[in-house]
């Protein structure tokens, strides 16, 4: 079982690309105590032979659509919400140093 120390939560947060303050980690440590207790309720349930349920219904609703162009966004529209655009591209800090 994990120790849920500060470094553990920092690592979890960095893996999904954000940071946590010390206060937020303190709160998370408390919340994880409740979460672990709640998850124990789950662990007590016998699920041997039960298939995971991913979506509510298993009736087929998706298919490969006809190869026709529909609902096209223009390049201008696609770039309209980016913070920094130059010559039709989104500008970010230099990647190759």
């Amino acid at each position, binding site marked *: 079982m994990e120790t849920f120390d500060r470094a553990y939560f920092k690592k979890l947060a960095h893996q999904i690309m954000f940071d946590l303050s010390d206060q937020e980690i303190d709160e998370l440590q408390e919340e994880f105590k409740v979460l672990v207790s709640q998850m124990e309720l789950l662990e007590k349930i016998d699920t041997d032979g039960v298939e995971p349920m991913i979506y509510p219904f298993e009736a087929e609703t*998706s298919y490969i659509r006809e190869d026709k162009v529909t609902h096209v966004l223009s390049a201008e529209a696609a770039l*309209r919400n980016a913070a920094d655009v130059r010559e039709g591209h*989104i500008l970010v800090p230099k990647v190759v140093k």
Partner: protein
Amino acid sequence: MRITDYKKQKPAENAKDALAKAKALQPVLNAVVTFYEDTKQQADAADAKAEGLLRGVPIALKDNVSTKDVRTTASSRILDNYVPVYDAAITEKLRDAGAIFIAKASMDELGMGGTNLNAYTGKVNNPWDVTRISGGSSGGSAALVASGVVPMAIGTDTGDSVRKPAAYCGVIGMKPTYGRISRYGIIPYASSLDHVGFFTRCVEDAAVTLQVLAGRDDRDLTSSFEPVLDYSNHLDDRIEGKRIAILDNVQNAVKDEESLKQFDTLMKSLRAKGAVIEHITLRNDLMQALLPTYSILANAEATANHSNLDGIRFGMREPGASVEEVMINSRTKGFSPAVRKRFVTGSYSLFVENQDRLFRKAQKVRRLIVQELEKALQNYDAVIACAAGSIAPHAEDTSEEKLSQTYLVAENHMLLGNFSGYPSITVPLGFVGGMPIGVSLTAKPFEEQQLLNIAAAIEKETGLADQTAEVKA
């Protein structure tokens, strides 16, 4: 006023009045993120239409519904400057039906919450008592309908986010079957649980709204091919012979005596009208597992869904020396602590070493829960229970003992509708201490007509159709 009443009036007057009321109440309710500026043009367009189920009717949209050229923030700082370049499927449908959009309504950030305390623009106040919460995550929409600003507002429901605020605000809140309404263009929370829903002040308006919104959309791959019915013309409030099951797990977990008394009175009157009312109990270990199962699945799906919110292609961008630093800074500042903590929980259950123990386990428990509900509904037209364990609390009273039966079951049983995808509705039941309470009904998949008919019978018994809260501006 009902939708039919609005349709008799001039669209321009409807738009003007609704917008003025929304603006006047904004300092009191704080229900709106963005007001529409083109309501006059929308009204003119509606006026030019020969017909339309919502012709000239002012409505509000939850702020996670994509609206071309109108800011859509999902009440998150990271999307504070985001202006969609396309419309959601339901935005198109509502406009085609002649609706006039007057406001984008506040919500818990990205749909993640049940209080509407976690919105970038702050708490939404309950129209019946502004010191109390509206509930969430569709709290702004619920408050706008309850206060009489609009007759209908759109919400979304991932874990009771339409039905709980509806109960707290004394209005109808409906979430139809998963796949019944397209989610194309809705900023997601958890894709396997997300539903589009709506608020109205009477069942008749709910039937009209469902008719407008329902139907197959190829752009949402979970959208159903089931035919759409003429729900309003088939509305029938005769309850005789309907088989309704009281969900005793919930009723035994509700501690408020007055709520239980009013619920029992309603059951007696439905029985007197010829309904067959019986009691059922689902496996309590599964009922207690609703919330933990939800926490795992919803947070894991949300973590994956929101990985595209990084400030690079859209949204608020924070400076950084590298792309990674830009993303980390944008996401740290862009999400509230509450949302970041949920993402950590989601990421935790998706770790390779935790996937079987937590994520897959939750998916298996979900199947058992749904099988239990399916079995119960085999003998009944609907399952009924108190929608919530209490009236809308004050902001400081929203954290309860997280392992109590009251919290796990009474406050979270409406997750059954999200796990199963079955249609579910909240209908006003009465008042406790001046605050509204509601009942929750759930029916078999795609039996929305049945659900609406039973809701109409309940509405007839309670006499609470069309009620609005008098809010002083």
